[in-house]
């Protein structure tokens, strides 16, 4: 298990960038907002690209995937700098996932129109195959449509901020330790030392923890 005497983990900067963005947003300082949003955008490029690769798998060509990545980043830059009202990385990442899904659907539909495809590509996105994700998407959409309503912002805030707080305690102690150490960026060698287990045990626990988190996302109460 983790101990308080271990060296500090290497931590990512995105939480700090987001905090500074929020401070600038509260002060109405557009220039500062842009500086920190750009830092967030840069640090999350690989996340967006990875999400597109997964979401578009078997549905978009390589060129179309690149188009989807570009569109997602443009929307993230041009629109979300104004429409994102959250205050945690969880909310931002949830919004990115929703954005990526929407962009991939748009790109696929446009590609289908151009190539006059008459049947949907395999595993069409029209199926509500991810209840938790759909719920999150609906909340984000509501927030964008009704931006002045604080209640809608609160929905989005709660979805992003509370999920891991809600879900992590539902994992077994070992899985919880693994996911918490992973989220702190602790190297696997250090995790092995702290937990007194082998790499194989950590890898297996990671996989199980992520499977359980995926299930919990679907169960997460709206």
């Amino acid at each position: 298990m983790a101990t308080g005497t271990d060296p500090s983990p290497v931590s990512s900067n995105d939480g700090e960038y987001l905090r500074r963005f929020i401070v600038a947003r509260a002060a109405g300082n557009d220039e500062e907002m842009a500086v920190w949003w750009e830092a967030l955008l840069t640090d999350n490029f690989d996340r967006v690209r990875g999400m597109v690769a997964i979401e578009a798998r078997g549905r978009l060509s390589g060129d179309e995937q690149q188009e989807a990545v570009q569109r997602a980043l443009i929307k993230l830059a041009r629109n979300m700098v104004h429409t994102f009202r959250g205050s945690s990385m969880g909310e931002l990442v949830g919004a990115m996932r929703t954005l990526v899904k929407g962009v991939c659907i748009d790109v696929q539909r446009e590609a289908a129109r151009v190539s006059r495809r008459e049947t949907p590509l395999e595993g069409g996105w029209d199926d509500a195959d991810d209840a938790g994700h759909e719920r999150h998407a609906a909340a984000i959409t509501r927030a964008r449509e009704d931006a002045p309503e604080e209640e809608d912002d609160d929905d989005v805030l709660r979805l992003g901020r509370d999920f891991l707080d809600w879900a992590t305690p539902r994992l077994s102690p070992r899985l919880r330790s693994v996911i918490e150490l992973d989220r702190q960026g602790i190297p696997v060698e250090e995790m092995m030392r702290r937990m007194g287990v082998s790499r194989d045990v950590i890898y297996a626990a990671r996989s199980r923890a992520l499977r359980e988190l995926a299930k919990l996302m679907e169960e997460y109460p709206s």
Partner: protein
Amino acid sequence: MTQIEQLLGEFIDAWKGGERPDVEAYLQRVPEAERDAFAEQLMTWLSVAPAPAYDDATRERIAADPAVRAAVAELGAAAQPLPARIHALRERAGLSIADLARAVAEAFGLSAQEARTTGYLERLEGGELDATRLSRRLCAALAGLLGVDADALAPPRAWSPATAGAAQALWRADGQPAAGVADALEALSQAAMEPAPPPMDELDRLFLGGPDA
């Protein structure tokens, strides 16, 4: 240990180490039959993972990616205050203020009000109007005419640290709010004694009536 567990473990280690693992390449290493399950686990990780702690050189490489550069260029334009954004978009579209005013007036069936619309747009771009009082209808129409998503020109909220501070002061009054709000009540009393402003017409409402007008 299964192959998925091994590859997922390697992917997460590489992610945390800032090595920028390629999702597509990892997916290709898994047999077709197991790829969906692996993809789902990768997506879950990407949905809960903190951004990696990139070193400066890596961050520079990311920033140099054409997709990131294009997005950052858009961000520069989008982060300007609304009047400056409208000005920049109008210039980009090659429209004069009179051109845009004509189109706005037509969009709202106010063709006879073209000159006044021009005046309002000039004041808006000049920073003389309170952008929080623009109607959403007007902002959406401007976005459409200037070729951007409505979100890009959404009216800013009428919220500021100043108003939040005033609200907090009220909450902190702890049973003695009168002293804290005496000035505000006095101002309200004086305002109530003044003659009512002339009623707004449709064009006034678009530019001055607030988001819901």
